[in-house]
């Protein structure tokens, strides 16, 4: 028997949820550990970045990389992983699309700093001190990573071979992804290792969706209603991102009686889930009874927060922000 394939599991700008999802393989994790040699996994193992640097180009079979890219350290580690791993799998919604923290792209850095370090009600900061890339201490320099203008999805920084979406990705998809790599049974590069259907197609409530779905009157917010556990949310006038979202999550939110927010990202072929969803929604709204289409649209309250909660950097809107930032960089 030859040497075990080497793998790296690494996070960039992440919350650790994808790593927990790997641990959620449960006994399957022991099987994975039997089959491969894990050479980097900062949450669980003591190998440092230098250990990874010591490997040659493409010496690792696969890198499972979670998180978005926001600072120079994320960028450096992403490039290091790309160079050392034959295959890079973008693991989870942040790596695939930017994720929730990418909503920060809607706001300028300066405004955020002002809020957090100056205006936050609990902060006492009489000298207006802020974290600095370099701080002198008795002739030594303490360094923090340089921060980028925006949050980037992983494939906006390095090339990514496969994507496993989800916040978090279901362990089953992770397991299948690892198995596909180990058995060399992989689809074309660039594929998303998840079903190709929309969430509605696998949702148990789909059977309650009227043939002609119509929304009359204002959008209802989830805390204002006692949602029926059987009925399609959209049919009840509650925003659900199911129609524009890829399935594969097991519809767990729907089963908990809360609507989909779109963490699996767009269905295949859709580049901008928000605009796709809003155009379908516009078609569903029958405002004749209320007489005020603007009031119905206004009842959505926070379109960008619903429609681009996980996907801002890779959306048409978000990519424009990133392009502008790049052009402005001297």
């Amino acid at each position, binding site marked *: 028997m030859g040497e075990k394939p080497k793998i790296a599991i690494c996070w960039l700008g992440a919350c650790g949820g994808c790593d927990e999802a790997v641990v959620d393989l449960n006994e399957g994790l022991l099987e994975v550990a039997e089959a491969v040699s894990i050479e980097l996994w900062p949450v669980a193992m003591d190998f440092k970045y230098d250990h990874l640097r010591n490997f040659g180009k493409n010496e690792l079979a696969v890198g499972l990389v979670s998180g978005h890219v926001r600072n120079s350290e994320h960028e450096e580690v992403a490039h290091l992983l790309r160079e050392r791993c034959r295959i890079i799998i973008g693991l989870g919604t942040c790596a695939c699309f930017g994720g929730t923290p990418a909503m920060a792209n809607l706001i300028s850095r*300066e405004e955020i700093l002002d809020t957090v370090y100056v205006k936050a009600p609990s902060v006492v900061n009489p000298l207006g001190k802020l974290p600095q890339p370099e701080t002198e201490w008795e002739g030594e320099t303490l360094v923090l990573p340089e921060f980028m203008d925006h949050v980037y999805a992983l494939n906006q920084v390095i090339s990514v071979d496969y994507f496993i979406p989800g916040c978090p990705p279901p362990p089953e998809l992770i397991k299948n992804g690892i198995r596909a790599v180990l058995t060399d049974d992989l689809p074309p590069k660039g594929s998303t290792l998840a079903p190709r259907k929309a969430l509605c197609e696998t949702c148990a409530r789909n059977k309650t969706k009227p043939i002609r779905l119509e929304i009359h009157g204002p959008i209802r917010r989830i805390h204002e209603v006692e949602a029926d556990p059987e009925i399609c949310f959209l049919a009840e006038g509650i925003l659900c991102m199911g129609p524009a979202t890829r399935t594969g999550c097991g519809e767990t939110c729907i089963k908990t009686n809360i609507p989909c927010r779109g963490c699996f990202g767009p269905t295949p072929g859709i580049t901008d889930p928000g605009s796709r969803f809003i155009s379908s929604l516009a078609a569903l709204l029958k405002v004749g009874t209320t007489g005020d289409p603007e009031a119905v649209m206004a009842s959505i309250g926070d379109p960008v927060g619903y429609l681009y909660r996980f996907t801002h950097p890779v959306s048409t809107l978000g990519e424009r922000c990133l392009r502008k930032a790049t052009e402005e960089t001297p």
Partner: protein
Amino acid sequence: MSQRITINPITRLEGHGKIEIFLDEQGEVRDAFWQVVELRGFERFCVGRPAEEMTRIAPNICGVCPSAHHMAASKALDALYGVAPTPTAKLLRELEFNAFIIEDHYIHFFFLAAPDFILGPDASPAERNILGVIGSLGQEIGKQVIDIRKRNRDIIRLLFSKAPHPEGGLPGGVPRGIAEEDRKTLMATADDSVNFALFALDLFKKEVLGKKALKDLILSDAYALDTYSMALVDENDRVSFYDGTVKVIGPDGREFVRFHPDDYLDHIAEWVEPWTTIKFCFLKQLGWKGLVEGDDTSLYRVAPLARLNVASGMATPLAQKEYDLFFETLGEPPVPHTLAMHWARLICALQAAERNQSIVRDPLLTSRDIRNMNLKLTRKGVGCVEAPRGTLFHHYETDERGILTRVNLIVATQNNAGPICLSIKKAARAFVRGPDVKEGFLNRVEMAFRAYDPCLACATHSLPGGIPLVVNLRDASGALIRTLTRD
């Protein structure tokens, strides 16, 4: 020649950080810095979002302790909408929260901390991990750990969709109830969790306390720290997770203050240092006194050791027995020994399991009365829980439509930021001597932060924008007071 040692990344914790140790020409440690290098953001980009979405957005602050943020958000929404959860909703929330405390404390103890004790601080870094622990303790115990973690996470999934990232808590309730047929499984999980907790404590006594070198390490000055301590306590002054009053004791053990979570701004403040992205919490009444311990400190610690030090006891009988043994062994509270946090953590997991044994047998658990719809928007709400890593505050303000206008968060690891820095410095001074420093001694420095189970994703929820170029300070009228620029 002076020497610099960098540990990057620090490992077996949640999030990104590094340690810099500076040695003088004699090889003695001049100083050591625990730097948090990650920056993300929630306080600012949550503004403009509908408040009820916070139980779906805030869990994404952290994939390890999302249940803590979910529950703090749920409670902040209760306050924001001036509504109390129905008795059944409260039971379901507590059931989930205890299940989370259990699984979270075990992922820390077995996956992140145990390698240093079961295999020893000097074991090869290649083996010093959960697989090494399972190799040493045997597959059977490994499978038990995996099983109890999985079944408690299944409770989280049953009630709030996913683990990690439970979501959907609503003001005044929960989005779904549970059926009577679920009760049998829940009872089995709760009962087995109590048995497992007792087993884990026995294991700790045998494998850690029973070994002189490890017990000496726990008791050594290198890992002792004198600060204030903070935790939630119930009406009987016992350890409490879901709800309670915030109690603070001094390094001398005397009660310093007790306050309602709504008043957190009167008691807790945050300080900024340029060399790390984390904000340091301190006791506002004492003012910022720097990174110092002892009588002159204004720093406080949270998390399991602080919980036991602060409370008069545990809220459940078996955990109380362990509490008594804890202080019989280590001396009167407050126990200063940072590594004793591991033992305290296992005692807290036992209380959570015992509490769930009662909850799963409560007839009200399966009632359909899961929502209190009597919502009255008050435009401000503070939610507080005793998260696994310590006391957690979510503070929301909204406009008249319930759209967020302000979000402020004090997270568990931030409370511990100052003490962790001090613990690192003390451990470095005790164990590191140049020029040739063995890896195992650097690991002993990392053990000082690991005991706190820090969560740096949580702790850096605040700042996605990164290092500034220019910041304009303005007064309330918008007039420019001062411009801060980066050199």
